[in-house]
């Protein structure tokens, strides 16, 4: 390793011309260092985006830019470089270079830790020792390593720096990879392999990546867990600032490292890794009060609105997918429309971000094969990115992002002498070559080959066939001669052949090889985008101000019962009246309801259908700090599919892997709205609890036998423990707030108020339960466990909102009714595991008969498409009346979620959420015709045909385009990596078509 490094340094000295202020005198044997004054004359100089000087002179001295302009005298001591026909740009900056990209292994991550399923002290869970296997102090979560400094480990290989220089890059912000809070980046010059000299500034940015599944069975494993861990850690860092003398005292380098970030002295780069998480990253960053930027996932085209709302600069990789070859033509059936769209949209994403008025910086991040950078940049330009924006994205924007805009980014006096020199038509023409770069006033030759005067075909001269020859490192220090005067080397065999090619007869051309075809393609004008926006055709279909449905059978689910031949009037987003005279001015939309049935929108009290990433953060027994609201998936196909079954609202719950699960989120199915736009703003907050087999890991496999709790006894012990901890937590805050807000007499005022207690997101959430601000929805099966929680919570003065599933609820219906707890059950699921052997389809009716507010839920993305038919089962089993049965999926879940003031029945003043059916919705052959939310129509069966026909047309066009371009790509030297990327499934659609339920991902 050391010897390699020595060689690298020596090589750098040999191949570079040093130009330091007072030139160093090296020992004999080394090449002597030349003067540090240079004059670059005759080139077109791009001073900064939008400012171009032709035939200009740039004077460099002592590693800085001394002068730039059209009529500048060449200093007598400067070496003159004639760059006629060249273009000079400010040296390009990669703001998000990863270590592995520079060829050095990323050694920053901590040692693997032992199994942490028994809990982490961080969350107050009894169990494992702190930091098992972690060699030093820091966060107890292995994925939280803000103290990691890239400045400490930067040790690039000459080869990888060369490849970056070839692309014109002169400096880069080297960022840590992997982990969640990853550490600080370092800003380096890409000339030197000696890290001490290369580093321009250390600790430029802190880095956060929303990386799920970081380590199996280790918190945080789910996406929502990641968000919670990020929030808690930053809050801790803030706390550490105000309360440095905590008892017990703590030395925590992780929190210390975050201090500059929370003080807004260091920018934080967030890598959200999906279109939707852009929004979450921005919200979390704003909540903490960070100065931040966002690393594009390349997917912002899905929701440009969210990117726009983030309103911070984006660092944009150019790793676009390419069309791969599929073994069989029929295999195209398994390529999704979304994959095709992602491929077709990718090159347009940079331009699209600019259109949102966002500052954009480009990076080679994500490109294993860096050579694709310029090819992809060209694609981005063809799709609307302007050259001026692109130049800014390579120079001024990244300079500003890294806080180095005084040092780099433009060709202005006083800045570092970092230049990128390109021949021909300039950088944005892929055929043009980067002739050389200057870094800190030193010249670095790239593999640039002077065009041979005898060859007239530019194409041939710059074709890849000579690469082997060209990349040979020159053993001697480069001779610098004026380009025009350089003698042409003897052409190689390959060149000779290539040079002959254009002279081939027309006959020979007729049998053109694929390669030639590909070349012809290159010349073709860029193909326009075929893919539509995923937002096309979504959103409200109509939003009339007044709707009147007449002559319908109306299931009010309110005091009016079922009305036949009735009318209902909807004014804007509310129900104006049912069977009452309607007053209106202006136009009204009339719907003839003859033969039709109108019901309230269906409500699902137990859903996981619109959750981004894992449903469970099952790593530790209490994850009360985790919030479903952070990961609402507004893009999943489930929304439209469930609208098609009359569903208008649902309760998104955390899974059932732990006794105290995450916080829930009630949403309305306003298809097309953003994650925040889906949220049911008036719904009270809640949380998922779970009991029984799942939480004691009965069916997780032999490996899972150590986490507390392993029995139903332990579940009770555990929950009681957390509630007592939360009581103490609340008391601590009360005490503090009393002291902080007390009206002290002047004389008695304490010198220093105590600092605020540490904010603990887990105990805060449980505390809110104790304060009556958060509803418990508890997954449960057996009667004993149901009674256990009921009594335990009564002991804490807590009213449980619902028991979910509650399949043995019928055995203790009186107790549940007396406790005023809702029962949200399955209609007839049973016998799929031991604890549901006693489940009976009469459960709903029986509990209902005994006075429990009963709902039927789905816990499945499929069942949620036909909850009306689930309700019908209450009629069949136990003889619940039809009026009451429909309430199982309308008014009753609304009551259970405490949103019955707004939804659940068709009564004046309530939200206009309703469904139009072709017949009695409890009839198994009924059809949902229309679904309305807030007085807007979101589903119409008649219009859905056209919607899917349009998708089919789009897909066919995309396949055709893909097949064509796949043939062309296969001829080009395209990367296997880009082809694999084609098959990536976006996070937003990962679970489409799959039944999501609460046991998902547990095992």
């Amino acid at each position, binding site marked *: 390793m050391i010897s390699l490094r020595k060689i690298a340094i020596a090589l750098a000295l040999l191949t570079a011309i040093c130009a330091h202020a007072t030139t160093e005198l090296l020992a004999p044997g080394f090449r002597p260092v030349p003067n540090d004054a240079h004059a670059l004359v005759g080139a077109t100089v791009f001073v900064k985006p939008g400012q171009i000087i032709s035939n200009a002179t740039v004077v460099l001295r002592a590693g800085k830019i001394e002068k730039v302009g059209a009529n500048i005298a060449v200093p007598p001591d400067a070496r003159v470089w004639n760059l006629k026909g060249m273009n000079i740009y400010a040296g390009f900056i990669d703001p998000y270079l990863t270590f592995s990209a520079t060829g050095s292994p990323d050694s920053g991550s901590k040692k693997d830790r032992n199994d942490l399923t028994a809990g982490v002290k961080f969350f107050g869970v009894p169990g494992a020792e702190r930091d098992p296997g972690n060699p030093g102090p820091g966060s107890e979560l292995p994925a939280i390593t803000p103290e990691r400094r890239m400045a400490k480990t930067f040790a690039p290989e000459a080869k990888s720096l060369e490849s970056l220089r070839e692309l014109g890059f002169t400096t880069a912000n080297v960022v840590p990879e992997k982990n969640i809070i990853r550490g600080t980046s370092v800003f380096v010059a890409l000339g030197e392999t000696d890290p001490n000299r290369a580093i321009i500034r250390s600790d430029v940015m802190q880095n956060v990546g929303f990386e799920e599944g970081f380590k199996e069975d280790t918190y945080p494993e789910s996406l929502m867990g990641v968000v919670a861990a990020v929030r808690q850690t930053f809050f801790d860092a803030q706390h550490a600032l105000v309360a440095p003398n905590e008892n017990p005292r703590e030395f925590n380098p992780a929190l210390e490292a975050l201090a500059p970030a929370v003080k807004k002295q260091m920018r934080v780069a967030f890598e959200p890794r999906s279109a939707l998480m852009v929004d979450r990253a921005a919200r979390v960053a704003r909540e903490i009060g960070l100065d931040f930027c966002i690393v594009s996932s390349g997917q912002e085209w899905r929701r440009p609105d969210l990117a726009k709302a983030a309103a911070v600069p984006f660092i944009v990789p150019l790793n676009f997918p390419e069309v791969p070859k599929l*073994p069989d033509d029929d295999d195209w059936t398994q390529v999704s429309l979304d994959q095709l769209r992602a491929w077709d949209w990718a090159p347009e994403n940079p331009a699209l971000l600019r259109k949102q008025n966002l500052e954009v910086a480009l990076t080679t991040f994500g490109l294993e094969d860096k050579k694709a950078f310029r090819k992809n940049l060209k694609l981005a330009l063809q799709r609307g990115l302007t050259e001026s924006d692109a130049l800014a994205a390579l120079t001024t924007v990244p300079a500003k992002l890294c806080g180095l805009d005084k040092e780099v980014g433009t060709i202005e006096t006083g800045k570092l002498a970092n230049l990128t020199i390109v021949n021909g038509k300039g950088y944005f023409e892929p055929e043009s070559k980067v002739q050389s770069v200057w870094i800190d006033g030193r010249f670095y030759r790239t593999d640039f080959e002077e065009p041979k005067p005898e060859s007239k075909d530019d194409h041939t001269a710059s074709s890849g066939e000579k690469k082997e020859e060209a990349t040979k490192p020159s053993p001697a220090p480069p001779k610098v001669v004026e380009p025009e005067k350089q003698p042409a080397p003897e052409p190689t065999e390959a060149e000779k052949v290539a040079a002959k090619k254009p002279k081939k007869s027309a006959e020979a051309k007729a049998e053109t090889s694929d390669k030639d075809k590909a070349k012809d393609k290159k010349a073709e004008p860029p193909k326009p985008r075929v893919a539509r926006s995923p937002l096309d055709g979504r959103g409200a279909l109509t939003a009339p101000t007044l709707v009147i449905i007449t002559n319908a059978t109306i299931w009010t689910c309110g005091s009016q019962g079922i009305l036949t031949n009735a009318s209902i009037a909807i004014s804007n987003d509310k129900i104006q009246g049912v069977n009452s005279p309607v007053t209106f001015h202006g136009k009204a939309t009339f719907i003839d309801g003859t033969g039709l049935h109108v019901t309230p929108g269906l409500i699902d009290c137990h859903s996981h259908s619109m959750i981004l990433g894992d449903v469970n953060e099952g790593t530790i027994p209490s994850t009360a700090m985790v919030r479903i609201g952070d990961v609402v998936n507004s893009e999943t*196909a*489930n929304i439209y599919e469930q609208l098609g079954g009359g569903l208008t609202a649902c309760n998104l719950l955390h899974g059932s892997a732990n006794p105290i699960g995450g916080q829930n989120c009630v949403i309305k199915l306003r298809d097309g709205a953003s994650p925040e736009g889906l949220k049911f703003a008036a719904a009270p907050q809640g949380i998922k609890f779970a009991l029984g087999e799942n939480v004691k890991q009965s069916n997780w496999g032999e490996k899972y036998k150590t986490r507390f709790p392993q029995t139903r006894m332990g579940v009770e012990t555990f929950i009681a423990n957390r509630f007592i901890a939360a009581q103490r937590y609340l008391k601590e805050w009360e005490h503090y707030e009393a002291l902080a807000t007390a009206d002290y007499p002047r004389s008695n005022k304490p010198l220093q108020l105590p600092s605020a207690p540490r904010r603990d997101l887990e105990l805060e959430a449980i505390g809110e339960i104790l304060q009556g601000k958060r509803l418990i929805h508890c997954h449960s099966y057996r009667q004993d466990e149901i009674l256990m929680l009921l009594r335990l919570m009564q002991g804490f003065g807590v009213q449980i909102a619902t028991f979910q599933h509650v399949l043995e609820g019928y055995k203790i219906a009186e107790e549940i009714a007396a406790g005023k707890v809702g029962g949200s059950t399955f209609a007839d699921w049973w016998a799929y595991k031991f604890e549901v052997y006693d489940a009976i389809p009469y459960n709903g009716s029986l509990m209902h008969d005994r006075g429990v507010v009963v709902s039927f839920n789905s816990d499945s993305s499929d069942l949620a498409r036909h909850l009306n*038919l689930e309700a019908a089962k209450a009629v069949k089993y136990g003889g619940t009346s039809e009026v009451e049965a429909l309430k199982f999926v309308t008014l009753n879940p609304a009551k259970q979620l405490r949103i019955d003031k707004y939804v659940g029945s068709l009564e004046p003043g309530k939200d206009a959420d309703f469904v139009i059916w072709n017949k009695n919705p409890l009839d198994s*052959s009924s059809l949902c015709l229309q679904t309305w939310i807030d007085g807007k129509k979101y589903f119409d069966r008649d219009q859905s045909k056209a919607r899917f026909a349009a998708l089919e047309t789009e897909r066919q066009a995309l396949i055709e385009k893909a097949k064509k371009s796949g043939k062309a790509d296969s001829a080009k030297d395209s990367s296997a990596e880009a082809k694999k990327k084609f098959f990536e499934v976006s996070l937003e659609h990962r679970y489409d*078509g799959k039944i999501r339920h609460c046991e998902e991902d547990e095992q």
Partner: protein
Amino acid sequence: MFSVLFCALIFSALAVSADQLLLRNAIVHTVSGATLNPGDVLIENGKIKEVSTHITTEGKSIDLKGQHLYPGMIALDTSIGLTELAGVRATQDEREVGDFVPDVKSWVAVNPDSELLPVTRANGVTHVAPAPQGSIVAGQSGLIVLDGWTSEQMAYKKPIALHVYWPNMELDLTPKDKVRDKSKWKSPEDQAKERTNKLKALDDFFQDARAYILARDVAKTNASVDPGRNPSWEAMRPYVRAELPIFVHADDSRAIKAAVKWAETNKFKIVIAGGRDSWMTADLLAKKNIPVIWEHTYQQPAHDYESYDSHYAAPGILHKAGVNVIFSLGGSTFIASLIKNLPYEAAQAVAFGLPEDEAIKGITLYPAQVSGVADKLGSIEPGKDATLFACDGNGILDLRANVHHVWIAGKEMSLESRHTRLYNKYKNRP
């Protein structure tokens, strides 16, 4: 021992012969013919003797005024009987190890006292076909009647089909860096090769079976060439000779097309089970006269370019093209306890375009036909088993309807189950 059995046989024969029962005034869904409203059905010796608008008899009769009378429903491709609680491993008997185990037989492992059976029967399902799950050639299924003291008595017809789980033709296109275990990642090209090899292996197995059977036949006259009795190859006999159907489990359109071609080449009799994408190849299946056991009613669309209702509408599309659609909930052990809901799968298809009489056939006559028992089950016709049920409401496709009587071979079944026992117990909790 022998004499006891003999006496029992005589006794039961006498008891049945004395039995005549008239079901009066029902809406008789004969399935094979017109619906009689009202109609009478006369049962004698466990068989249907007469079906008519009006029958007079001296014997016992039941007035079924307002009730619908249907032939017992038949659920093919299920794991009921072979499983009790999907989450409890000790109760699983539906899946064997090995890619080529044609001599595995489902009917020998049916638990007659499974709590799942009475629940299923109480809603009018009288016959089920537990199927061995597995990969490639997984074994044979028999038709089980939901009445009997022993598994032997319950084996109504054995075997009815061989189960071939068509090799997966879907490629796993997950990029390598997204795969947890990178060592298991395979390129699409390698997967395509593997796919071809698996199909060849499947075909080879059938060709080897054919060769064995030929050799055995020749050996009848020339013992010197006898390869010796091999139970695996023996099990293949009726399928290679197309005397019995092969249920090919295939969901992906590529698999379905490949299976159809394979069957055509070899002149095998096949039925597509699962059939998720079968509606995409409806015309092909109709042309080759291949029925589909449709198991995806209550599953979301498989591709993002399908309409939200593609799986609701699929049976209607298949029927329109000329394919007979049989409904099933599939072989998952998690669904075994819900086979009682078979008619609602069909009802959903009715809402989305399948004619109602076709939906009824899809749960009665069509499954009887592919099981080779249409001479005894599947419709209400003289000569067939008096296996019937009566329900109220708008008929069995209506979820709200309750089944009031179930007869199997003329014998009225108890509708009691674990569900009703627990219901009655806790309904009366003081």
